[in-house]
């Protein structure tokens, strides 16, 4: 019984997730460009444009009024024959780099882009030093040292003892 329940559960999950996946492709109903190639381009650009009202959504995902207006502007520009960069520059000149969901590489954003590399470098240096200090300890522990005189006399004592016991 339990196994059947699990199978049904898995099925329900599959069906539901398919339903939601389909949902993700739903696009707001509005004037689309008649040329599917241009429409595709307009959507691709819109996916990368931040909705300034809802901030972490693209204008493609948002139904805020401003997002709607920006979408129609993107479509208009694409239809007028602007290149992808032209459309983006048009919006950047009004709303700044912030309107792009992925920040462009500039002097101002250099630190943002380089910081993962920097952090990786710092981490690597620490890791290297840590590993070396550990291997130093291990190798020094492994090195053979001659016995000290005390150890020699102790060892001889033990040997003598066991020999005497064995004799008895």
């Amino acid at each position, binding site marked *: 019984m339990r196994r059947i329940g699990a199978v049904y559960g898995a099925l329900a999950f599959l069906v539901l997730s398919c339903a939601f996946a389909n949902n993700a492709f739903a696009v707001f109903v509005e004037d689309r460009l008649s040329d599917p190639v241009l429409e595709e381009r307009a959507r691709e650009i819109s996916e990368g444009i931040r909705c*300034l009202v809802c901030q972490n959504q693209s204008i493609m995902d948002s139904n805020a009024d401003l997002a709607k*207006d*920006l979408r129609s502007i993107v479509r208009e520009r694409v239809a007028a024959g602007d290149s992808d960069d032209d459309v983006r520059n048009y919006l950047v000149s009004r709303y700044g780099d912030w309107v792009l969901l992925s920040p462009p590489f500039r002097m101002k954003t250099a630190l943002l882009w380089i910081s993962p590399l920097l952090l990786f470098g710092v981490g690597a240096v620490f890791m290297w030093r840590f590993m070396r200090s550990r291997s130093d300890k291990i190798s020094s522990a492994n090195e053979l040292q001659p016995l000290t005189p005390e150890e020699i006399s102790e060892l001889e004592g033990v040997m003598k003892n066991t020999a005497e016991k064995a004799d008895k």
Partner: protein
Amino acid sequence: MKLKFLAPVLTFLVIAAVMFYALFHLDPTEIPSELIDHKTPEFSLSAVPGYGESLSSADLKAGKITLLNVFASWCVACLAEHPVLMELKRQGKIEIYGLNYKDKPDAAAKWLSKHGNPYTRTGMDLKGRVGIDFGVYGVPETFIMGPDGTILDKIIGPIMEKDLKNKILPRIQENLG
């Protein structure tokens, strides 16, 4: 180095301090305007019926500092700053132009008759295109325009006491002096 154990604690404290500062002193909804120090975008709009003359970019280059206030009758926050605009008009030191953003002409006229009209000129931006040219992403927004039509500064959201004191009044002073 006996203090080595403090390193994680210190790291945490630094991160906490940065976050604490950001929580109370930085506003993520405030996007610095790209258009500051740029010329006004070109536009020409007809006035809200019965309220002043029409508004075009030429009016913003008329050789004096002006305020361009983006407002709408559907905008609640606009009501909050309305008394400030009325007071500025009463003092008469600066001309205020109203950009009526994505509104209905009747509704805008009604709103102005109900709450008072601080604007010497109004322009109806029915489709919101001029607003987008100005980088407007919410109402109200107020632009301080230089004598030659340069955007000197921008106030996002209702004009507060501190905006008046730090941004608008010094500009007026500067212009008179």
